[in-house]
C-alpha cells in the first residue's frame, strides 16, 4: 500500500482513538462513582470551559492526550513524506560506442536534479532536506558565494532559532544566515606553482574506503 494512504489511514485511526479512548475513564468514573462531583474549569484555545460529572473526566483525559497525539501525528506526517532511494549503474562509452572501463573516472561523476533541491529567490533560500530529524546534527550545510565567503552550519544549529512545523516538515529560520566576506577567499590562490602534494598512506589516519 502507498505510504501516503497508510499515513491517511493512521491519521484517521489516531483521531478515532483520540475521541473514543478518553470515554473509557469517564465511563469508569460514572459507573464506579456516580455520586462523586467532578468538575473542570479552564481556558483552552481561546475558549473558557466549565464542565462537571463524567464529561469533566472526559475533557481532562482529552486534554492530557493532546500532547501524546501531537507527537504521534508528527511521526505519521513523516511517513507521508518519504525519502526515495534511487539505485542505478552508470556506464561510460567511448566515441565509437565501445565501453570505456575506468571506475576512477566515475568518481568524478556529478549528478544534478531538476527541480533543484535548492531554490534562491532574492535573499530567500528554500532547501529540500533529505533524511529525518535524527540526522540534523550530522547534516552539514554550506552556504557559499564562490570567491567571497561561506558559512558552515548543521541543520540542528539552524533549527535552534527557527519556527518548526513538524507536520508540514518545514524549518523556518527566524534570522538570516550571514555569509561574511573572507579575506582568504578574496586573495589569489598561490598554491598552483607546479608543485603538488605527495600522498603517503604509510603514516596517517585509517583509510575509510
Amino acid at each position, binding site marked *: 500500500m502507498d505510504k501516503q494512504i497508510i499515513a491517511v489511514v493512521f491519521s484517521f485511526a489516531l483521531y478515532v482513538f483520540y475521541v473514543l479512548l478518553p470515554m473509557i475513564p469517564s465511563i469508569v468514573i460514572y459507573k464506579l462513582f456516580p455520586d462523586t462531583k467532578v468538575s473542570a474549569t479552564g481556558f483552552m484555545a481561546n475558549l473558557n470551559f466549565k464542565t462537571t460529572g463524567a464529561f469533566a473526566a472526559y475533557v481532562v483525559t482529552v486534554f492530557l492526550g493532546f500532547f501524546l497525539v501531537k507527537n504521534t501525528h508528527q511521526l505519521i506526517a513523516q511517513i507521508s513524506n518519504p525519502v526515495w532511494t534511487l539505485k542505478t549503474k552508470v556506464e561510460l562509452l567511448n566515441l565509437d560506442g565501445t565501453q570505456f572501463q575506468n571506475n576512477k573516472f566515475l568518481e568524478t561523476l556529478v549528478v544534478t536534479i531538476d527541480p533543484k533541491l535548492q531554490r534562491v529567490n532574492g535573499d530567500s533560500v528554500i532547501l529540500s532536506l533529505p533524511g529525518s530529524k535524527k540526522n540534523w546534527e550530522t547534516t552539514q550545510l554550506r552556504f557559499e558565494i564562490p570567491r567571497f565567503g561561506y558559512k558552515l552550519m548543521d541543520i540542528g544549529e539552524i533549527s535552534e532559532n527557527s519556527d518548526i512545523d513538524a507536520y508540514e516538515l518545514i524549518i523556518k529560520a527566524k534570522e538570516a544566515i550571514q555569509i561574511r566576506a573572507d579575506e582568504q577567499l578574496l586573495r589569489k590562490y598561490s598554491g598552483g606553482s607546479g608543485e603538488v602534494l605527495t600522498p603517503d598512506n604509510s603514516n596517517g589516519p585509517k*583509510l575509510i574506503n
Partner: protein
Amino acid sequence: MMLQKHIKLIFVVLFILAPIIVSATNLRGRIEGFNQYYKSTYPLAGVTVDLYFQGPGGWQQIGRYITGSDGMYYFQNLYQGYYSLQINGRQNYPITVLNVPYQDLPPIMITY
C-alpha cells in the same frame, strides 16, 4: 599587595599578546583532476576532504570539506603542527600547518 599588582599586569600583557603568540591559521588548497582521456587538468568538484590531527588518542578528524566547482577546500582556525588530509577516504596527504594567518597548500592531483 605589590605582588598582586604584578600578577594583574602579567595577565593584562598576556591577554594583549595572546593573539600574537598563538595565532590561528586559515588553510586552503585545491583538488585537481588529471583526466587521462582528454589529457587535461581541471578543478574537481564533490571531493570529500577530511582533516585529521594526531592527538594523544591517535588521529582525530577535526574537519570536513566537500569541494565546490572550483575544487577548493578551506579549514579555519588551525594551530601550527602536523596534520593529515584524507581525500575521499582513500588517500592520506601529510601536511604541516605554519604559524601564519593564511596558508595556501600546493594542489592535490588525482589522476583518473
